């Protein structure tokens, strides 16, 4: 009851005209920032951080600056789906799963339906998460504390288990793609050993090549290739994602469409949009799975919204009566990841506010914003700063409603993009890919890598190599490896820490159940298709 009263007050504060106005502006800015591949919510929030001083001077309400930043974050989460659906480029790792079915829907001329589904699923996911958030924040943050290194690794394993359904029918090519993505994630600086690794063509290799061609002793004045600049920061997610989708897939489409001028016959009409809203009832299942699963994965620090959206897509597909329709433009396949990534993004605010640790890069920047505003997120935040916390939570409800309305209102504009002649749209997409990659990492090396990956992806695409698993593996790879090695460091190289509840971690003889249960579920999920396949073979022989 106390919570309800506090929440009502919070919502009322968030609905005051100045805060409502900020939420609307923030959502619109976020929507466009999120829709541009590369810029994304991280940059949107980081860039507009200093702007909050202007807001504070104008309103003198302690909650206003954060309401504005949170609205940008929210808007960007909605916006991510827009570039996934209309351009086919996931602007953020959380929106990769949205391309799987959103893009086919757009190509079939149902872009409006895909956008509406994404918007409404996002709204439901965000609202479900906000309700959980306001009701059970302290309890949920204690759950998050129980997830240490082995638990997070087991969770990553569970996310990988859902990969199995994502590739094509060609098993070795899917495997190659997963391994390759995971390996790309290891390039660069290794946190645990404190050393660089897989720095391609480093000074040692350059010298070796020069000596091989007979330039011995010239090592001092070699034509210096800056391997540190190229690889020390590692291979970032967007470099691969924009390369694969913005360049590779685009070249493939140009080749496939052969001089045809328009891409799709997209009609824009009010009645079609209304029909799409009513059609949401077909996607209730994906929405439900996404809203709940997304939130619980999202509150776990270090996991973030990407495994949440991916696992929701996987689960929706696994439990579907017609799994073959996924990837061909099934609205459930848009609803599940979109509900999940909004739900998880709200969830990711929870460890940030109650534990002071960000679950994603964007919440990290929001955290920096809170610090600048003299707030120290931590376990006592709810008790110490209620005048700030509750209006912010209240603004989640408001921002959600604002975001879905703004998003629906802007759909005709985004559809208009699809009606551009393809010979104008294609160079615009290339340009956005280049400028977006640069904006994301401030680095020309990454832009070059992005284009090389794109051309390589096009060649592999012709040969039916599925590349979505590689793109997702790059996101999850860093965390997975780090948690695996931290756990094995703890256990002196003993894998029992993952599968046995009786492994003694701290010399006190405690039992740990979360990691083993998660690991076993993941192992069963990975093995299940193989067992079923083997049983089918045996039965066929008998």
């Amino acid at each position, binding site marked *: 009851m106390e919570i309800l009263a506090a929440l009502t007050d919070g919502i009322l504060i968030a609905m005051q005209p100045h805060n409502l106005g900020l939420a609307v502006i923030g959502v619109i800015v976020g929507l466009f920032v999120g829709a541009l591949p590369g810029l994304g919510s991280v940059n949107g929030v980081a860039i507009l951080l200093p702007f909050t001083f202007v807001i504070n001077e104008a309103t003198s309400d302690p909650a206003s600056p954060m309401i504005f930043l949170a609205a940008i974050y929210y808007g960007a989460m909605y916006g991510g789906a827009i570039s996934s659906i209309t351009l086919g480029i996931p602007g953020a790792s959380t929106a990769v799963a949205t391309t799987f079915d959103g893009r086919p829907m757009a190509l079939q001329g149902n872009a409006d339906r895909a956008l509406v589904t994404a918007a409404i699923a996002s709204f439901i996911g965000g609202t479900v998460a906000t309700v959980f958030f306001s009701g059970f924040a302290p309890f949920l943050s204690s759950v998050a504390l129980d*997830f240490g290194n082995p638990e997070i690794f087991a969770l990553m394993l569970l996310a990988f288990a859902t990969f199995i359904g994502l590739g094509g029918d060609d098993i070795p090519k899917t495997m190659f793609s997963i391994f390759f993505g995971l390996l790309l994630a290891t390039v660069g600086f290794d946190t*645990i050993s404190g050393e660089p690794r897989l720095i391609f063509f480093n000074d040692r290799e350059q010298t070796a090549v020069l000596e091989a061609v007979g330039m011995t002793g010239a090592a001092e004045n070699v034509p210096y290739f800056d391997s540190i*600049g190229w690889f020390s920061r590692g291979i970032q997610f967007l470099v691969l994602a924009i390369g694969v989708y913005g360049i590779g897939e685009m070249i493939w489409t140009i080749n496939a469409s052969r001089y045809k001028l328009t891409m799709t016959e997209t009609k824009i009409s009010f009645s079609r949009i209304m029909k799409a809203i009513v059609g949401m009832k077909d996607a209730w299942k994906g929405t439900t799975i996404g809203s709940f699963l997304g939130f619980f994965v999202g509150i776990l620090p270090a996991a973030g919204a990407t495994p949440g959206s991916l696992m929701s897509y996987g689960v929706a597909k696994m439990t579907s009566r017609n799994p073959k329709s996924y990837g061909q433009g099934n609205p459930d396949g848009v609803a599940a990841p979109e509900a999940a990534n909004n739900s998880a993004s709200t969830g990711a605010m929870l460890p940030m506010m109650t534990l002071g640790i*960000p679950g994603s890069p964007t919440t990290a920047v929001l955290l*920096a914003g809170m610090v600048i505003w003299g707030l120290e997120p931590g376990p006592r935040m709810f008790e110490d700063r209620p005048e700030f916390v509750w209006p912010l939570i209240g603004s989640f409800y408001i921002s959600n409603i604002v975001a879905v309305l703004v998003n629906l209102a802007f759909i005709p504009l985004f559809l208009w993009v699809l009606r551009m002649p393809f010979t104008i749209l294609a160079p615009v997409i290339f340009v956005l890919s280049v400028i977006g990659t640069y904006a994301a990492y401030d680095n020309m090396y990454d832009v070059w890598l992005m284009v090389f990956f794109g051309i390589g992806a096009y060649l592999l695409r012709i040969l039916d190599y599925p590349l979505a698993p590689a793109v997702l593996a790059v996101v999850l790879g860093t965390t997975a490896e780090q948690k695996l090695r931290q756990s094995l460091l703890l256990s002196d190289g003993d894998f029992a820490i993952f599968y046995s509840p009786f492994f003694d971690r701290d*010399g006190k003889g405690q039992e740990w159940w979360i990691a083993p249960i998660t690991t076993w579920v993941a192992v069963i999920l990975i093995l299940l298709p193989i067992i079923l396949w083997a049983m089918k073979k045996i039965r066929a022989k008998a």
Partner: protein
Amino acid sequence: MKLMKTLALTGAALGMTVAATAAQAFEPSKPIDFVIMAGKGGGADKMARLMQSIVEKNELASVPMVPTNKSGGSGAEALSYMSKVNDPDHSIMVTLNSFYTTPLRQPGLKVDNMAFAPIGRMAEDTFVLWVHKDEGISTFDEFLAEVKSRGNKWVMGGTGKNSEDNIITDHLNEAYGLDIKYIPYKGGGAVAKDLAGKQIQSSVNNPSEALGFYESGDVVPIVAFTNERLPMFPDTPTLNEASDEADFSYFMQRSVVGAPGMSHEAAAYYTELFRNVYKSDEWQKYKNDKSLMGDFVSQLDLADYWAGQIANHETILKASGAIK
């Protein structure tokens, strides 16, 4: 070819006129590239964005200051980028102790850290030893006894390998004959959370990182690695007070440096700019709230301070075997 030559000559001429005007009094003519030697959201990033916000809010600079994160290779990327910028007068960087340790550990970088322009040291961050309250430890002697009884099952979490946290842990192991296992994490926040969740047994977080859990009573400070007690934790002794034979303190610098080759006029301009940031109420409040120490040190004094720190870190890293 001829065209290129003409262009290059024009370029050189333009560069010269710019240099000539700069000799009088430096005023930035384009957005300042403000490099952060760490990823988004970390301690250094928070501080850098606070500095940027203070500059923007008080309108201390006539052009925007644009933060860019270059976190690769524990600062290697940032250092090598800064050594190669084409306009050193508009490139500054926020640094931490990896400014000393990274060039020492990665000689292949060919970076000379004394070539960077000393602009200003904004603060020195402090380190405190923390344990979970359920361990029932409150003094350093109890800590030593408990760690010894646990053998190699006592785990210390920290940010990065051979980093500040690792150096302190190595020191504890060596000076007191302990066998603490050190697990590197990506950021201080994750360490603090795992300590509160009893996934690790101790940490040497900065006060700013552990403050939330200290206030909620989950974690307890044991000793501070400073020369005097921290005003925020008056009951927590320094290591030198808690242990008779100890003579150890360790700090993390939070400094702003200019790219190698920055003109003296530009360096003077940025020193003045950051002196104003340092003096601002926001910065002073932040410094007190987060238990930061250290006065504003600039120019030659800062270079002297670096020389001392570099020598100091070389000794420490050699002793621990991280470098040869």
